[in-house]
């Protein structure tokens, strides 16, 4: 789960990590007022669920409250396209107004999961402000990594080694050690899959400060943090993905015109691969899960029908635990409610497949059955205007 920079900074501040004085704004008036409070000179930063904002024009330095207002007028409602947003970009609905801070040095600092060792690791570099992945490819020797034993936690000597490697000395070094220890505590207690400070800076006045912050929460841990739900900015997420979330469905909107309903994430991915291979264009990834009920299947089907791009629907179910008759009942319930003029190709196999077919055949829907996966894919691709490349 994503949150905005200003929210991440609030969390860091609550862990004693210094961040610039700032305030979130939803309106132009709020921006102007905050800018005045900071004495006019400030930074206005677009809050979207993606990085790379600076280069896309989403971060403005204002010398006065008037300039801040001008930046706000320009940024509110603007669509920012960055390397991380995809081609459609994301619309700016919130801004962060911050004091402008003089920067002497920039660093990179983050804690995330290292899958290889199954442990959290602290990653740091003296090359701050740039994308760490790019740096990892270009000059990996400039990246310092410490893997953290969960039973011991991050120890001061480990943090000190990193701080020294970043070139910090004396008081600054010890402050950086404290900051890293706090960052690890934050990562654990808040169930983060990523906490990233990029850049961490040394200010002209020689203080450490988190100039930008990114936090991702572990979706599996949301039950421990009911307060996170209110932090989500729904304007940053596709509306169909929001509905899917309410029904615990795994849904991702894609660019094509073939609506897909599959059970199991791996099979769903493989189905998309296959549709593309045969020249079709999937409109979505949708995993209805292993033990879905009729209502959940119906919700899934309604989501697919709610996508105006969809010209045909491909249902691929390998019924193990998931019964084919439940799938059929769900589809029929959704179609009766919303109407479904679109052609549907159903490839079903496994538990109670004959019952599922009988129900769908009697439903009056435009359904074609295939037993074979390849045949099913070819059929739906043909119906939606695709062809083998």
């Amino acid at each position, binding site marked *: 789960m994503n949150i905005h920079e200003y929210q991440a900074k609030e969390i860091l501040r609550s862990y004693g990590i210094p961040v610039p004085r700032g305030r979130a704004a939803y309106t132009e008036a709020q921006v102007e007022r905050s800018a005045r409070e900071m004495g006019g000179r400030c930074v206005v930063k677009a809050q979207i669920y993606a990085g790379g904002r600076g280069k896309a024009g989403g971060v403005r330095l204002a010398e006065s409250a008037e300039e801040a207002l001008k930046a706000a007028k320009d940024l509110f409602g603007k669509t920012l396209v960055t390397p*991380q947003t*995809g081609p459609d970009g994301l619309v700016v609905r919130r801004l962060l107004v911050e004091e402008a801070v003089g920067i002497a040095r920039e660093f990179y600092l983050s804690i995330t*999961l290292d*899958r*290889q060792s*199954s*442990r*959290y690791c602290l990653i740091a570099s003296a090359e701050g402000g740039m994308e*760490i*992945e790019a740096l*990892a*490819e270009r000059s990996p020797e400039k990246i310092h990594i410490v893997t953290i*034993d*969960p*039973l011991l936690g991050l120890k001061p000597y480990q943090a000190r080694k990193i701080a020294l490697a970043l070139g910090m000395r004396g008081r600054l070094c010890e402050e950086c050690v404290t900051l890293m220890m706090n960052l690890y505590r934050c990562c*654990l207690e808040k*169930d983060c*899959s990523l906490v990233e400070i990029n850049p961490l800076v040394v200010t002209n006045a020689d203080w450490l400060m988190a100039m930008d912050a990114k936090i991702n929460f*572990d*979706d*599996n*841990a949301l*039950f*421990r943090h009911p307060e996170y739900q209110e932090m989500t900015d729904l304007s940053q997420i596709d509306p169909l993905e929001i509905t899917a979330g309410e029904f615990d469905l*795994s849904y*991702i909107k*894609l660019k094509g015109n073939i609506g897909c309903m*599959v*059970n*199991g*994430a*791996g*099979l*769903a*991915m*493989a*189905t*998309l*691969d*296959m549709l*593309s*291979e045969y020249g079709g264009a*999937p409109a979505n*990834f949708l*995993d209805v899960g*292993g*033990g879905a009920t009729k209502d959940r299947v119906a919700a899934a089907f309604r989501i697919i029908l709610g996508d105006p791009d969809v010209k045909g629907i491909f249902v691929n179910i*390998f*019924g*193990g*635990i998931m019964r084919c008759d439940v799938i059929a009942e769900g589809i029929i319930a959704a179609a009766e409610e919303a109407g479904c003029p679109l052609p549907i190709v159903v490839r079903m*196999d*496994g*538990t109670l497949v004959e019952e599922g077919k009988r129900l769908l055949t009697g439903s009056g829907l435009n359904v074609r059955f295939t037993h*074979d*996966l*390849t045949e099913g*894919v070819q059929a739906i691709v043909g119906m939606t205007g695709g062809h083998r490349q």
Partner: protein
Amino acid sequence: MSVLVNKDSKILVQGITGRTGLFHTRQCRDYGTNIVAGVTPGKGGAVIEGIPVFDTVEEAVSETGADVSLIFVPPPGAADAVLEAAAAGLGLAVCITEGIPVRDMVFVKRALRESGMVMIGPNCPGIITPGECKVGIMPGDIHLKGKIGVVSRSGTLTYEAVKQLTVTGLGQTTCIGIGGDPIIGLNFLDALRLFNDDPETEGVFLIGEIGGGAEEEAAAWIRDHMKKPVAAFIAGRTAPPGKRMGHAGAIISGGKGKAEDKIRVLKECGVSVAPGPAHMGETMVQAMK
């Protein structure tokens, strides 16, 4: 022969009284699995479907001699359930539970280093030795006792592969779903080692997906040590970067974990890679020639 579970395995089910736990306990037993005990804290002394229920794993083991645990405990208590199984001295725990917080698994994985227990999963379909023992949620009837070891990060995609292996007549020795989470117990390498040493396994089918570097690691090991033919399929060639495709582990970030890279490395290491999910059985047949 087979790996990890066979007709002599004695299974206990943690979370046996829940809806899912009970349903699959019945399914496993109908398949012929020897389920000797259930564990649900607070329900000790009950008997469910003729199976005695205990408050703790320790009691269940000492009363019934169970040696494998099948875990259906919901996410908030799942990590504790795995640790309890390890503390009771079990040799294998199969954790089906989906949605366990990463932080919990970081600690579990670390703690398991000090125990002799192998964990399969979490977020996996389990393990089955066809005709002998099913410890998981996979449909039993698509399997056929045979010669291929199957190891997979996915659920239903495994069923697809298994069915194709059954149709081609190759059949399976043991099928292991290692799970789709970023932190798992038994991994591809462990499974490959087991299959390599199992005299009945004549070939291995590996099902991977985008995210992480486990397939690449497996490929290198296959090149250096594997004595048997290996075929594979990788899901997610057309997945958009940065999106979580159902499995928490299936995310391409920072240019790492792409399907093309995995496929290329596997091929370079001598693995036959199926061009699509409809060709998994056929690719295995070719690899066995």
